[in-house]
């Protein structure tokens, strides 16, 4: 290796080191702590960056924020029993420099509202209401019980897992929605072009409505499921792998291949399941035992 090459490598390494140190030094960690009462509210508006919420013992909200530049600041406020957090972009801020990542600990009974345009939104192990909204945000919710779960996204994928006794409403324009072991009095997904995938047993006596304009809908249920299932696709196909007891009285025409309506399991315990699509494919599958 010539002396000139060595010189260039050294200069390059020094420059790279300087740049990385500069980048790292632009990151700022900030922590906030609020004492709250029972069933507190926590609201986070974060245009660019992720928000993750987990439960913690005690009536305290602990917020750990990573700010990626000095072009953004965190406005925080405790109003009554409600904590409000806003990532506030300063002049010159953009999606990169305005990014803030939050890790938040809340009492398990807190109601949480999260909003981000581009980051991921995550909430787990809570039994307070959870509302998550974001344009292209990735949404992940799991282990929620006895609560409302409301999600709105433009194209971010939505994954909801293990929600018991939930009042679940998901609106997504083009993001795929996956529900696994989600049950409750109301489970509703509306999508324009995203696919909807439900894996679970539809609980008992709940109303499950999965609708997509052009996305496919797939429901995979165990053989022990009790449900009254109607499926209808205006221009798409409908497949049913599970033998259903057909309904004798229906208020829409049952055309082979584009609609079915029937009951599986115990009718006294059955939930109502409505699967609707215009041009997407609908498939009711039986889950194979592992």
């Amino acid at each position, binding site marked *: 290796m010539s002396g000139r090459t060595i010189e260039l490598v050294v200069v390059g390494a020094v420059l790279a080191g300087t740049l990385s140190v500069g980048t790292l030094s632009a990151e700022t960690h900030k922590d906030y702590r609020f004492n709250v009462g029972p069933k507190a509210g926590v609201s986070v508006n974060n245009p660019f960056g992720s928000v993750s919420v987990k439960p913690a013992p005690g009536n305290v909200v602990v917020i750990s924020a990573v700010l990626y530049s000095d072009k953004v600041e965190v406005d925080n406020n405790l109003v009554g029993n409600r904590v409000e957090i806003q990532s506030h972009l300063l002049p010159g801020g953009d*999606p990169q420099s305005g990014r803030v990542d939050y890790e938040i600990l809340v009492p398990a009974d807190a109601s949480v509202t999260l909003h981000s345009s581009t980051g991921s939104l995550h909430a787990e192990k809570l039994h307070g209401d959870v509302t998550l909204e974001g344009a292209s945000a990735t949404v992940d919710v799991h282990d929620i019980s006895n609560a409302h779960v409301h999600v709105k996204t433009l194209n971010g994928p939505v994954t909801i897992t293990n929600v018991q006794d939930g009042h679940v409403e998901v609106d997504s324009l083009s993001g795929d929605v996956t529900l696994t072991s989600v049950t409750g009095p109301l489970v509703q997904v509306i999508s324009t072009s995203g696919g909807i995938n439900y894996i679970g047993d539809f609980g008992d006596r709940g109303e499950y409505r999965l609708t997509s304009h052009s996305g496919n809908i797939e429901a995979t249920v165990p053989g022990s499921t009790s449900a009254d299932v109607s499926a209808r696709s205006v221009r798409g196909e409908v497949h049913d792998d599970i033998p259903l007891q057909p309904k004798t009285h229906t208020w829409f025409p049952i055309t082979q291949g584009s609609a079915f309506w029937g009951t599986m399991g115990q009718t006294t315990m059955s939930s109502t399941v409505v699967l609707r699509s215009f041009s997407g494919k609908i498939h009711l599958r039986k889950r194979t035992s592992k």
Partner: protein
Amino acid sequence: MNCVDLQASLAETEDVSRVGQNSAQRAHLKSCPECSALVAELNLIASSAIELRAANEPSPRVWNSIEIALRQEGLIRPQRTGRSLLPSLGSRWAFARWALPVAAAVLITVGVYIRQTSLPVQLARNDAPAVAVSSEVSDAAIAGLNDEDLLQEAAKQSPAMQAQYTDNLRRVNQYIQDAKGVVAADPNDEDARRSLLEAYQEKAMLFELAMDRSLP
């Protein structure tokens, strides 16, 4: 009270029919046929005037003629064409002013839905044209929001997302059209009506997301 006093009191009276309720006036009117005739005549004129006002309201054409004449005389100037009646999308809080029309559009849609579902089934078939007309009204209200302006605003707030907003707007408009088609084919189809409502909800959500409340 004499005739001068009575006529002076008439000048201060707003309601002629009330003349004579005062004891002094009543005593004078009993004794004075001239004043009594005058009050009767005034009552007749007042009652006839009310009927004339209701019966002879000038037609819109008259108002138009008056307006044209006033414009020709330069007493009315045309409004500046550069200023739109619709709120601008350019300012920071512009979308807040769109919130009301958005809410109105959604409410109209919901109202149409609720009204239609509340009608007896046997009337639904007869009301098919009404459904179509109502849907047109709702569409017009939503179209008034101007998809193009929305996309421009989305591009301004988040340029990288413009293509996705464009694509989603196209898809949701197609959703609405498809749902309307199914409703038109069978106005009794409760399910199709619900799908139409959901399609409108999706579009409302698209506008809501484009507003991006989290942005500072």
